[in-house]
């Protein structure tokens, strides 16, 4: 989310880079095109990282506007602003855009910028593929957004697109929705391949796997999850496509298919997808908290192991999204138990962060504020997740605003706060300037108030009996919805502050040294701020002292 144009003086080598034969040859090829072509053709990981982040920030606002349409309609009972049909399109688009176009590309952008810097690599392993996987995204989401203008409207079946609402009963534009999702999926897969290839092969000499910063570790595991589940999503939407256009009956009972099969396949992708959106956040927070507590991360080894375990277990819990579809008792029990157990390694992470703070020397710069808010609010989301895991109670919670509150706590002050914490943390490295502290603090406090005002009342609305995805509601839910809507507009408006901070930071501000934060240890802080376009052309020598031991 940082529109930082990497410095133009591309031939100026960083202090760690020594001119050598191959790298000079390399430069001779890349006579930089100017203007638009520079960005269209760039293969530089920093430029592509910036492109991802700018795209993600744009889509964050697009998805946010959709959410505000929803919240405006729900401001008070009755139908005031939009028709139910358009309301459904808004809830669907909000979910799809936020998941696939805001959160996932933001993490990919951070990975592009920071993974090579953190492992001492000159670039990603497959730079041209990197360019391709980014440019697929604008194509995919232009296509997706254009469905809103098609006759019959855009997708209106929720981001989970359950069959047969999304097949037999879907609007005509669904084929384009499927195509868009396919393209976005290919983009994520290519990005994941690139990240895996980079991490496994491009580490600085002397850096072993166990020396890697946690952000790199969590991304490596996330990339494996992407490789494992994005093809399943591709499979399931291909089946939808065939059901819609070629007369097959994968999900149609009339032809011997089964609508419940759709949900099994979707959540087999969907639950690991949830972890895809949160594991890199764990990595970012695990970098920030030790930096500002000036103390090594507690339980680095446990963190790595627990991340791997969570990733593996995430394939065993999918049906907890389906407790009320009429699963047999045994399946219900199995998924209840496995879901409860996955809370343990997740809890261990929270304990580790808190213990890292214990007896530290803590300061409260903007990245730290967001990271601390992450720990508290993500944990609250985890608590409601634990409640949802209790299958009998889930019969009451399922498909209500309680669930909406739960996953927004995990994703907004979870994933999105972690992304913002990461942006504030690495902005000095990207731009050479510190972000304006006063404004960033203002952004933080507004966001905290906005997030809680928006999502906390949703717990009550859900417990009181308000179902999800309804454009109008009974009078007893009015107060909660009023609060949520006010909070949502406040939260939305305060994100403009974020844009302001980032823009100001790109244009100027207090100069940052190479090691911008006193307690920072990882390799990225050894290159100058701002990081020159080409770094680590000659691999740095990795000193064990920088590791986590």
């Amino acid at each position: 989310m940082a529109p930082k144009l990497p410095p133009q003086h591309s031939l100026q080598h960083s202090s760690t880079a020594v001119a050598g034969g191959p790298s000079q040859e390399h430069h001779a090829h890349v006579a930089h095109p100017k203007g638009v072509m520079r960005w269209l053709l760039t293969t530089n990981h920093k430029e592509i990282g910036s492109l991802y982040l700018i795209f993600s920030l744009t889509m964050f606002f697009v998805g946010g506007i959709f959410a505000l349409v929803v919240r405006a309609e729900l401001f008070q009972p009755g139908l005031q602003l939009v028709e139910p049909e358009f309301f459904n399109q808004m809830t669907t688009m909000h979910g799809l855009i936020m998941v696939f176009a805001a959160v996932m590309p933001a993490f990919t952008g951070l990975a592009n910028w920071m993974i090579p810097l953190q492992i001492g690599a000159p670039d990603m392993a497959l730079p041209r593929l990197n360019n391709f996987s980014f440019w697929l995204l604008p194509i995919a989401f232009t296509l997706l957004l254009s469905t809103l203008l098609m006759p019959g409207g855009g997708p209106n079946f929720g981001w989970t697109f359950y069959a047969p609402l999304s097949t037999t009963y879907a609007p005509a534009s669904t084929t384009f929705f499927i195509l868009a999702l396919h393209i976005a999926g290919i983009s994520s897969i290519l990005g994941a391949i690139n990240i895996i290839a980079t991490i496994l092969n491009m580490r600085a000499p002397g850096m072993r796997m166990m020396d890697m910063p946690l952000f790199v570790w969590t991304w490596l595991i996330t990339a494996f999850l992407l490789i494992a589940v994005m093809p399943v999503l591709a499979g399931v939407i291909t089946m939808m496509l065939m059901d819609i256009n070629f007369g097959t009956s994968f999900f149609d009972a009339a032809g011997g298919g089964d609508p419940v099969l759709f949900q099994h396949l979707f959540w087999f992708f969907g639950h690991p997808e949830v972890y895809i959106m949160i594991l890199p956040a764990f990595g970012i927070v695990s970098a920030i908290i030790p930096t500002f507590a000036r103390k090594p991360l507690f339980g680095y080894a446990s963190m790595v192991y627990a991340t791997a375990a969570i990733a593996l277990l995430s394939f065993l819990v999918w049906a907890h999204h389906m407790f009320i579809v009429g699963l047999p008792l045994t399946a219900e029990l199995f998924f209840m138990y496995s879901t409860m157990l996955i809370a343990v390694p997740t809890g261990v992470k929270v304990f580790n962060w808190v213990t890292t703070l214990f007896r530290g020397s803590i300061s409260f710069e903007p990245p730290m504020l967001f990271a601390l808010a992450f720990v508290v609010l993500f944990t609250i989301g985890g608590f409601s997740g634990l409640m949802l895991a209790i299958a009998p109670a889930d019969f009451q919670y399922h498909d209500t605003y309680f669930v909406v509150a739960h996953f927004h706590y995990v994703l907004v002050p979870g994933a999105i706060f972690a992304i913002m914490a990461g942006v504030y943390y690495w902005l000095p490295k990207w731009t050479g300037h510190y972000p304006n502290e006063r404004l960033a603090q203002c952004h933080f406090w507004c966001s905290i108030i906005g997030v809680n005002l928006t999502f906390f009342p949703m717990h009550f609305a859900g417990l009181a009996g308000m179902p999800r995805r309804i454009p109008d509601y009974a009078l007893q839910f009015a107060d909660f919805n009023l609060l949520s809507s006010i909070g949502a507009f406040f939260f939305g408006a305060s994100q403009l502050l974020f844009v302001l901070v980032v823009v100001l930071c790109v244009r100027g501000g207090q100069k940052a040294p190479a090691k911008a934060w006193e307690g920072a240890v990882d390799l990225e802080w050894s290159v100058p701020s701002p990081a020159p376009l080409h770094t680590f052309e000659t691999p740095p020598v990795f000193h064990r002292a920088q590791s986590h031991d």
Partner: protein
Amino acid sequence: MWPVVKSVLAALLGVQNDRQRQHDFSTGKPAVFIIVAVLVTLIFVLLLAGIAIFAAG
């Protein structure tokens, strides 16, 4: 084999110390860990399924 299994079990709980990790990463092959992890996961699934079937009566 036992140290690998121990490490995988430690991973499931999210508890591992640094010395053990150093040891894992300096001596073990990733493939061995992955295979053992998948096996342990399978056993875990069977165990959990067994408990569920027993509990469902």
